[in-house]
């Protein structure tokens, strides 16, 4: 495959972004590039970025859809900051993405799309190809549309619409050549996808090959780049998004408990894909229920949990708001349940297709009365798998609803997942009570001393007939009680049993020295950028430590101690300081917390964190706690 005309250059990592109209198939193109790179052995991380409209008018900025891939021969944790390469299918795609591109980066663009009309739609008053706008980039002008048409005209029997739809594969072919990727993964995919439309299959394959050959034959690229396979831990890998990982984790948890899985949900971006994935897994006895609204979804999950199966409900922030009364009922009933919040930009409808971490306080406190609920937050797309299983372990142990706090970034990003052996995953053991001895009265709310949970007694079991309800309760019997003492006792017991989960939650670890000037505390999806930024600073010889939280309620037992070893604690969050808020309460003796807030619907870049953390290392903050 080596090409004598081009020189090769080995690089460690490349960030490439494909951008075009919503209808141009950019998500697909990006996915193909990812799959090929993954199978090739690179470490990968991807991030799609699409508008909340389905297909805004062709050629407009509003309609631009993008997909970014970071692929590398080293371990990577994020889809990368600034792309090195931008593939732009039209002027709007160029305009919407140019600012992000690294200075001196490579642009491949479809000149055929740079018509007067399209320039106008994109809001260009001058043609950027001609006015010097692009002078500081490596520009490759490709008449993609016409080249693709030429390449496909032989095939015959295709409408011109069908031919033009293959353009993206032509572009993909060019990038495959540029980065020396094999074509077979995509060939295989095309064959399977269009098994019933052989003409279309042929067209796409031809376009892909033609693009590749174009790279080979036309000497517009001086150099080809080579990114060696990464030294990943040995084993089987696949690509996974956070949403898929959640779905697989939930199914695994259920299987490991010998349980049916119930998923009740009302579609909402960016959580819907969990429903879509689970709906295809009916052969695992997964029962999905697309409810009429979020209130019904949580209600059905409560009913299913009462029925004795593994019940889950998933949504995003607006849906959590609607579910909060139901969640509170589950708290009161003490039924095990998993609630997924895939956070998006808020408040209100906000930025529905973008990411944010601003639901933390809502899931922690957004219910009337005292209503403690455990919360776990995955750190990466593949961590979603583990968190899903962990959530059920906690739920059945304490007989409580448990929150999983994911977000739009984790939901849609992909990374390679080291596939576990399902047999190595420990079972979840549940003992439902059976008919009581004749001498003892059955006490549905009797607490198990080790966990403070209660037993999970389920309808259909002879002799355990009992009634659950949302009214205040007598301890042990669970009978309605208006006795002031009973109410206080049950409130405290519910708080205690959640706090007691800390018994089985692993202690918090950190990387870097265990005490010193600066500790960075992060949680959720910011893991990748924060860890990367800390690594950069550590590599520069800076003294800085990083603790990433997965358990947000209760916190690991050792957290206050761990934090107390540092002069300053910095908390980067995609909100206005919500975790910092909770840490301040929980780690009362520590006073110098510093927020780094971002509310832009976008993840942190490594660069901005390196800068902000670097600045803090230079200028220590006053130790007076006045930094919020």
């Amino acid at each position: 495959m080596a090409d004598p005309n081009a020189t090769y250059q080995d690089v460690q990592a490349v960030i490439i972004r494909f951008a075009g109209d919503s209808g141009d198939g950019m998500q697909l193109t990006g996915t193909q590039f990812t799959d090929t790179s993954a199978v090739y052995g690179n470490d990968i991380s991807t991030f799609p970025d699409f508008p909340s409209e389905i297909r805004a008018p062709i050629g407009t900025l509003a309609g631009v859809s993008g997909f970014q891939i970071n692929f590398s021969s080293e371990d990577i944790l994020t889809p990368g900051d600034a792309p090195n390469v931008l593939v732009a299918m039209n002027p709007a795609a160029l305009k919407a993405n140019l600012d992000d591109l690294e200075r001196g980066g490579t642009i491949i663009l479809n000149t055929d799309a740079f018509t007067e009309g399209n320039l106008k739609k994109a809001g260009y008053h001058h043609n950027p190809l001609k006015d010097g706008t692009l002078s500081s980039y490596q520009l490759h002008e490709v008449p993609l549309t016409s080249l693709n048409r030429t390449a496909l005209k032989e095939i015959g029997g295709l409408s011109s619409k069908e031919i033009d739809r293959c353009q993206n594969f032509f572009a993909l072919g060019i990038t495959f050549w540029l980065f020396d990727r094999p074509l077979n993964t995509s060939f295989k995919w095309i064959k399977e996808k269009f098994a019933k439309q052989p003409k279309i299959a042929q067209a796409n394959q031809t376009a892909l090959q033609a693009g590749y050959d174009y790279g080979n034959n036309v000497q517009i690229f001086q150099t080809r780049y080579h990114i060696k396979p990464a030294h990943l831990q040995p084993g089987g890998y696949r690509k996974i998004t956070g949403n898929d990982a959640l779905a697989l984790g939930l199914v695994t948890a259920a299987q490991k408990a010998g349980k049916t899985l119930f998923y009740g949900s009302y579609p909402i971006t960016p959580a819907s894909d969990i429903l879509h994935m689970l709906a295809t897994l009916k052969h695992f006895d997964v029962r999905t229920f697309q409810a009429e609204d979020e209130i019904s979804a949580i209600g059905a999950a409560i009913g299913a949990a009462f029925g004795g199966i593994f019940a889950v409900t998933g949504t995003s922030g607006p849906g959590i708001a609607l579910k909060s009364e139901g969640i509170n009922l589950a708290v009161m009933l003490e039924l095990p349940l998993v609630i997924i919040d895939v956070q998006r930009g808020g408040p209100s409808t906000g930025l529905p297709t973008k990411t944010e971490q601003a639901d933390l306080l809502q899931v922690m406190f957004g219910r009337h009365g005292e209503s403690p609920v455990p919360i776990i937050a995955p750190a990466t797309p593949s961590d979603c798998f583990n968190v899903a299983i962990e959530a059920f372990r906690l739920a059945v142990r304490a007989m409580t609803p448990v929150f999983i706090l994911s977000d739009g970034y984790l939901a849609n990003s992909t990374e390679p997942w080291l596939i576990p052996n399902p047999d190595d995953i420990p079972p979840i053991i549940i003992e439902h009570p059976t008919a009581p001895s004749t001498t003892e009265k059955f006490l549905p709310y009797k607490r198990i001393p080790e966990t403070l949970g209660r037993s999970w007694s389920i309808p259909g079991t002879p002799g355990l007939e009992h009634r659950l309800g949302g009214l205040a309760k007598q301890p042990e019997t669970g009978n309605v009680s208006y006795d002031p003492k009973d109410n206080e006792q049950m409130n405290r017991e519910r708080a205690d049993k959640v706090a007691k989960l800390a018994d089985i939650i692993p202690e918090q670890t950190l990387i870097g020295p265990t005490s010193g000037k600066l500790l960075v505390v992060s949680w959720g999806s910011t893991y990748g950028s924060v860890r990367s930024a800390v690594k950069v600073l550590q590599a520069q010889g800076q003294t800085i430590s990083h603790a990433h939280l997965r358990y947000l309620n209760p916190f690991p037992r050792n957290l206050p101690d761990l934090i107390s070893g540092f002069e300053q604690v910095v908390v980067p969050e995609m909100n206005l300081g919500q975790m910092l808020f909770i840490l301040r309460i929980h780690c009362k003796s520590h006073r110098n917390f510093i927020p780094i807030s971002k509310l832009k619907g976008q993840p942190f870049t490594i660069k901005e964190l390196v800068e902000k953390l670097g600045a803090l290392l230079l200028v220590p903050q006053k130790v007076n706690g006045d930094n919020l």
Partner: protein
Amino acid sequence: MSETVKLTRKDFVSDQMVRWCPGCGDYAILAQVQKVLPELGIPKEKFVMVSGIGCSSRFPYYMNTYGMHSIHGRAAPIATGLKIANPDLSVWVITGDGDALSIGGNHFIHLMRRNVDLNIILFNNRIYGLTKGQYSPTSPQGLKTKSSPMGSLEQPLNPIALAIGAEATFVARTVDTHLKHMGQVLLRAAAHKGTSFVEIYQNCVIFNDGTFEYATDPAKRVENTVELEHGKPLIFGKNRDKGIRLNGLEPEIVSLDTVEEKDLLVHNETASPSLAYLLSQMRYPQLPEPMGIFRCVEPPSYEKQIHDQVETAIGLKGKGDLHKLYYAIDTWEVPQKVEG
């Protein structure tokens, strides 16, 4: 205990004190349910009563079965989830006019169209009892209550018509004072595979006393209601001397002295829902109100279809295997590194 021990009414009485107002219609309904359930031949542990919030929704506490007193308006989705989890259970939803039709209206219509195999008993007292007497979605227009001192402005919902508008498969009506009729209707509801909706006219002695007197008082009942019987003409009156005839689409009262039985409207539970809808429009005082089963058809129930899809999927793909699942999309192997 799941052997077929003969159950009796007493088996269904819980140890909790019944706390409704003296004279409340809810007592009669409780007694009747406790009488009917043992007749169904279902082991006691299979029954689950799920309710929302309201006077009527305290019901589950008084039944010695599994039960849940949930939150306002949400019994329907909770019962749906429960039935999906375990289709073996006999699940009863207990609700009020406020619980089911005001805050719970959305779940109500979606339950109807989904046709989950549940039995809903709606205690219609045309008032919010538990919150001390505001008008409800079934209160007659003009009703003066705490929240409508000059009279309620809202056209009431007709629960039967709404259910039929929402594709219900079993719709019935009965009254708290007519025990025999109530018992028959409940038996039919229990037998129906799919959502059985039963509206019961229930008297609230405290906040809306006598609202249904025309239909609950035995003497008035025979004049103001007509019992629906499948395949039979609509005949009513103390002397069964009056009947209902259709004039175009308008039901009218005719005397059997002048009109022959064969010209009367004949009830058909399985006819197009247009008949059931038309019957729902017969309202006191213009016409006698139909009692009994308005409609009963049996398309497959929702949870059964879910289970069928699970079976089909297993048939097609085999029982789920986690290993296969993880490897279901393109995967690649990173080989053991050979250090050297």
